[in-house]
């Protein structure tokens, strides 16, 4: 009996892969034809433009990718309702795009951390699930990936 179970055990041990998928989650908007085009004022946008070389134009100021989180966090601190709009060139490497997205997520994380400290006097990772939802509700992420200019 033990032999058979050992055999099965070995089989499952070998076939199991315990690797958790990690990544940056996002919900895409429905297709452009179905939705109305909502006009947003330029003042309520943080425009992040990234070119081929990885240079960043953040609201008409030239910066680099590792500085985005600080600038965006400062802007969001003043006005939480700002929408962060990312626009990249077709030739921009994926690596740069992910770094940019990561920077913006970091900016939101800084704000959430501050909010958690203010309201619950606890760092973000020590919050209960309910408190976490409250934080998420208070500091909402509004990231917009700009409609590409031409597609296949």
């Amino acid at each position: 009996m033990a032999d058979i179970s050992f055999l099965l055990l070995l089989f499952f041990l070998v076939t199991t892969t315990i690797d958790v998928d990690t990544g940056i989650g996002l919900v895409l908007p429905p297709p452009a034809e179905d939705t109305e085009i909502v006009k947003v004022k330029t003042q309520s946008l943080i425009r992040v433009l990234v070119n081929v070389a990885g240079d960043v134009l953040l609201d008409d100021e030239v910066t680099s990718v590792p500085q985005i989180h600080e600038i965006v966090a400062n802007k969001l601190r003043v006005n939480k309702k700002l929408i962060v709009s990312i626009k990249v060139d077709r030739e921009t490497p994926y690596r740069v795009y992910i770094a940019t997205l990561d920077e913006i997520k970091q900016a939101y994380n800084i704000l959430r951390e501050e909010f958690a400290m203010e309201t619950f006097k606890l760092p973000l990772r020590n919050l209960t699930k309910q408190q976490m939802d409250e934080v998420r509700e208070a500091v909402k992420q509004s990231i917009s990936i700009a409609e590409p200019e031409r597609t296949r």
Partner: protein
Amino acid sequence: MKFKKKQASTKQSVPTASLPDIIFMLLIFFMVSTVLREFDVKVQFTLPAAKQIEKIDNKRIVSYIWVGRDGRVQVDDNLVLIPEIQNLAARKRQLIPSVIMSLRIDEGSKMGIVTDIQQQLRKGDALRINYSTLMKL
């Protein structure tokens, strides 16, 4: 003179009566946690790294799209062309309504391919996506 080794009177073997129980428990654990669905990845890719990452808890609702270094795109076990993704995504959405499309894209790919895939996914109504990344330390 006769020497006699001093020995305790108790048995010196490890009791193995509970061994099958332990093995069964491990076996059941692995049987439950295994997801028997592996893909034969035909493209070569290196994932980018990021700090603010989330875990996907439920592997059963994840569907993968690979984009290789050479720009080839793979969905499930087949290499596909970008315009085909719309139908594939729509079919997946029918099978699993809460499907998460995990994009495993090579870090050197051009954003053009990525936006094209995203447009196709939007048309196919598979809107939950996840950019698969590694943990940046």
